[in-house]
């Protein structure tokens, strides 16, 4: 399958960028976010926000997206850990069921620093 990937911040280095990079990645099917990070040589600790097709799948430090399955022609946006989306802008944003469930059960309203 072919995945379109955008990398934002310092992690862009794995695709030859300084702060920005876009690339297409071929992955054997089935593939998950974890496989993509492996192929890109990206440590999950370096990745914060994750969007798949405009749906928020992960927040810094949670690593809830690693087992998310990817599909052909998906677009995935990976942000460095330095990018934080303040809580109030997240309010009402479209999220994955897994992230919703986590936030509902963990009262995860705030960014947890450190």
């Amino acid at each position: 399958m072919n995945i379109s990937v955008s990398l934002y911040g310092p992690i862009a280095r794995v695709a030859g960028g300084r702060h920005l990079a876009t690339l297409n990645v071929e992955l054997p099917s089935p593939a998950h976010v974890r496989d993509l990070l492996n192929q890109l040589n990206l440590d999950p600790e370096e990745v914060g926000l994750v969007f798949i097709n405009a749906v928020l799948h992960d927040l810094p430090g949670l690593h809830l997206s690693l087992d998310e399955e990817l599909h052909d022609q998906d677009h995935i946006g990976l942000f460095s850990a330095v990018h934080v989306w303040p809580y109030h802008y997240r309010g009402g944003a479209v999220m994955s069921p897994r992230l919703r469930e986590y936030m509902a059960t963990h009262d995860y309203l705030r960014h947890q620093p450190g």
Partner: protein
Amino acid sequence: MTRKILRINMTDLTATYEDIPEKWAKWAGRGLTTAIVYDEVDPSVHPLGPNNKLVIAPGWVSGTPAAPSSGRTSFGGKSPLTGTIKESNSGGLSSQKLGRLGIAAIILEGQPKDGKWYYIHIDKDGVTFHDASDLLGKGMEEVDRIMWERHPNEPAVIGIGPVGEHLSANAGISVNDPENNPGRYAGRGGLGAVMGARHVKAIVVDDKGGPGVEIKNKELFTQGRRKLTKAILAHDITKPDGGLNLYGTDVLMNIINEAGGLPTRNFSSGQFEGAAKISGEMIHEMVEKRQAGMTGHACHPGCVIQCSNIYPGPDGSIIASPIEYETAFALGANCGIDDLDFVAYLTKECNDLGLDTIEMGNTLAIAMEAGLIEFGDKVGALALMEEIRKDTPLGRILASGVATTARVFGVHRVPVVKGQSMPAYEPRAIKGIGFTYATSTMGADHTSGYTIAPEILGTGQKVDPFTYEGKAELSLAFQATTAFIDSTGYCLFIAFPILDIQEGFEGMVESVAGVMGWDIGPNDVVELGKEILKMERLFNERAGFNKEHDRMPEFMRYEPLPPHNVVWDVPDEELDKVYAWVHEG
């Protein structure tokens, strides 16, 4: 020294220092500008007439030693853009200098009988009025430079560009930064026209030898500022090399775009294919590549966040400072323009002519929707800015903002609430911010409702982010807390660390309590903020606004926004809960 009110009457060219009346004694910043406008401006006056006033106030902690990121100046009056009360605030040099001169607020009132224009110089020895006829028609870059040539000690320059002289509804008020660039703006709501209606081109503030800010409880103040500074330096958003410091506020461009909430081509899509090219990451790359300009720029002395930037052109010369997220959204994505250099050229024009970049970018988008030029036509956009500079009738229309321009050209997709156009978060995709856009006393305004987590505010509510339940209360808590922060003199971006770090929130409150000699704690913040909101809301009611004005534009209710294809579906009665308390109890 006890703080004083400086009343400047332009009708008879007098300046008097007055004791602060008891009813205003506790306020500073937005609380004080709102209280003075509420008491002294009849809500029925015409914003450009002789009876409106411009009130300028530093915050509680502005000018104190080592209070972090505390250089915000609050400007208040009745808005020619919205017809509501308006508070707009700015960074730059003015807040700390006013604070150190012992000035709680400047009340600028009246109009010169001779019709002449003046600029005003304020220092420790008093106020002088100067003929400004040679400054008329000049942009803020030149005005700032001339003021520093004429007056010593690198003073603050609060000024209006040609658009403010023309009393246009999108005229902002510029404050110079430490490099004497005019990029810091109390932009929203047309307060530059309120200043222009007083025939004041600039106010120059020199604090050398000033008495400084009286701090009633130094120990508490020091404890508070240390706790706040620690929180700012620890938080991922605000710490050195954190998101804001590295990439500026435009760090949000790619995030909001990936989320599908970036208003694009006059709010017709939530994603812009050129977003990365106008993002904070790209600003950083250009500064590195061109080896000129800078990121991590401080808009006022003592800022520890340093989210501003100075953007260089292809030849390494400086084009504009700063390129912010709101600027890049409005002049970029919302116009379909993906060229950062042109976003910078357009920003430079706004900063020099004296225009709010959000309203101006959104107005260019309306012109594009109307077919004057195509979306993405960056050269055409600059040509429209030239119409404003040449002061043509078309330029006058464009300088009047989104609502006026849309009416003139017959556009029905008009992203405004109470006459003010929306900032860079699409409320159909990110509904939380929509509550604030709809109900704010200021019109559509992202800075009215910066959030605070409910547990920090002690309201004890657990809020489900996915229902409307509790959202009204939460929006009110946000708006009230923001009104408090806008009164401190601290930059609103301290909201990021203090909403996540309890100690930082305590520190903010303790630093204010230390200056004022108060015994208040974190639980008092919302109540004090609500006092400010109540004055603003009552002013607006008396100016003819009611709950029917707390509504989203109609097109957002029936036009699905790609990529999520969502409409604004929050019931009106949920919105009406936000301010229901004003007339209860």
